[in-house]
């Protein structure tokens, strides 16, 4: 049977220092860059050795991804040095960007702000590359009991409800949903199980929940209570004495079907 997945999130941010300009990995809090936690290729190799099920590589620099040559080189290096599935996103604007990223080694491409502004991007990408390559990435905030989708790295409100938008994006051809609660991001307080469950119930494609994991229980809750197919975590693996191998044991001990062997 199909197992549930644990997906480390690698957030890439360009930095300049005495070492020159390079990509570093950061954790975020409420989507603001909080802490530098390492270098992309090093962390990808580590996660692979720790048997992560796949990696989500999300660029948080502004501007179109197609113009970020350093990022494209980084993706190519990741694909060369690891044997694991890579989902790449952050500044994907055109369907041609899919070709660019897939040819550099990505397996799936996540689209967010561009899709919200221009939903035909979803159907175009799905038609050209297949739904299995298209991940709709949805970030949301909740205020006074109402949830709203935000784009542009959490800065621009859209007036859309995340459940409705997820349903619409899947209708247009997205093969997977990556959902993130902006306020819980980096908080360690746990996933948004309510919205997570609603989205999982609203669509027929796999749903990846993220934003807020701080304890192993939170991963289990995401699977058992929200019905997530996968949980993505950034801060959880970076700033605690934790790793995917420990996490998977904890999840398996709770009765969730997850890949155990090598």
């Amino acid at each position, binding site marked *: 049977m199909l197992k549930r997945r644990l997906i480390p999130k690698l957030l890439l941010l360009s*930095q300049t220092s005495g070492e020159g300009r390079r990509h570093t990995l950061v954790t975020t809090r409420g989507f603001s860059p909080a802490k530098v936690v390492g270098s992309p290729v090093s*962390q990808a190799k580590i996660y692979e050795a720790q048997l992560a099920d796949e990696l989500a590589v999300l660029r948080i620099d502004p501007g179109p991804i197609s113009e970020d040559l350093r990022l494209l080189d980084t993706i190519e290096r990741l694909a060369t040095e690891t044997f694991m599935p890579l989902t790449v996103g952050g500044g994907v604007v055109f369907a041609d960007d899919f070709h660019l990223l897939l040819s550099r080694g990505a397996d799936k491409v996540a689209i967010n702000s561009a899709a919200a502004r221009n939903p035909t991007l979803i159907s175009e990408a799905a038609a050209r590359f297949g739904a299995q390559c298209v991940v709709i990435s949805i970030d949301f905030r909740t205020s006074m009991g109402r949830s709203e989708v935000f784009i542009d790295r959490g800065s621009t409100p859209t007036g859309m409800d995340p459940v409705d938008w997820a349903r619409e994006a899947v209708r247009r051809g997205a093969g997977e949903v990556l959902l993130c609660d902006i306020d819980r991001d980096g908080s360690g307080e746990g996933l948004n199980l309510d919205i997570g469950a609603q989205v999982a119930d609203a669509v027929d494609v796999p749903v990846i929940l993220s934003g807020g994991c701080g304890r192993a229980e939170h991963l289990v809750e995401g699977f058992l209570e929200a019905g997530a197919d996968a949980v993505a975590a950034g801060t959880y693996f970076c*700033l605690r004495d934790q790793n995917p*191998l420990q996490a998977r044991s904890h999840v*398996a001990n709770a009765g969730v079907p997850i890949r155990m062997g090598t």
Partner: protein
Amino acid sequence: MCGTIREMRRCTLCNLPETHETIAFDERGVCNVCRQQDMKRDAVNWVAAKRDLDSLIAAHRGKADYDCIVPFSGGKDSTWTLYYLIKEYGLKPLVVRFDHGFLRPNLNDNVQRTLRRLGADFLSFTPNWKVVRRLMLQAFLEKGDFCWHCHTGIFSYPMWVAIEKKVPLIFWGEPSAEYTAYYTYGQAEEVDEKRFNRYVNLGMSADDMHERLGADLDMRDLKPYSYPPAKLLRELGCRSVCLGSFVPWDVKRQSEIIERELGWQGDLVENVPPQYRYEKIECYMQGVRDYIKFIKRGYSRPSHLVAIDIRNGRLDKQQGQTRVEEFEGRRPPSLDLFLEFTGLSEEEFLRIAMSHQVSPYEHRPDLTIEGRPVPDFDRWSREGAMPRPEAEAAIRRWAEQNPGSAPVAS
């Protein structure tokens, strides 16, 4: 005994709790570490493994300045490994030690005795203490484990020596499958970069640590903690293996032999039952390490040692529990030294350690009892305390970036 350890799920056989790294329980509630011992006993072809060892050694004997490298601490495991390779095979090893900075006096006596009785060349490397001190604090903040420099140094430094001296064969001691499920006894565990990344480096390479320190450290200072590039090891034809992958590991029997044949002496160790005099004698920060583990996971070395005895039928669960309760979770006297080395107050120490707790354990510091010092406590060096401003700067930077966890420096 402190904390909520009674609420944790435990192995029905050895009593290890669910917070033990990689532990998984089967349908009868028996843990994978126990089952790995079954595998070791029943499923590994040790006769074939010994033949593989013979071939491996034959392929390397006499081909370089040394037949092999033996990374060495002077503890029971590396002493046994060295003893076995010299006595059983008559090898000419280069013994290589990475000095983590906390070697105990009795240990140094053991090392000298061992080397004089066996006869081998010995290379010891002590890294820059100011770098070590900084790494200890940073690793404690980042991962709740201050031993990053030690884990990475012990496994990286000998590899650089191998490359430099052109000695491709490296023998380590016990396979990790003895104690955790990062690898199983069914797998060939090479002591390589994958293993280094899987659990040795706590999820941080030297490059990552450099970034986490704000990239203001000379990268050369991190070389002893950096795993060599795969290309260099491939060109060397490196084979880095565990002796325990070829010969079944038996700590009790091995300790008795080295005591008898080499005059190896065990030692009392902070907050560990005295029956285990062979265990972890090489480091005077061991007590702090165990204490932090208890704060995070609700168990530590006594539980681990008792679990081994239970699996081997030397204790039952009730006897084991009694032994654990008498020693586990106490505040070690060496904590005073650790606080000086890292510039932390005890309150800061507790709050940082508790921020790394592994659920479902929740520590109760109010239940902590003071542990007893061991006889050589006063001989442990307290030299090299971190200046408080340096510690404060590290804590402040980490607290700013890590909301809801670390305390702000007072």
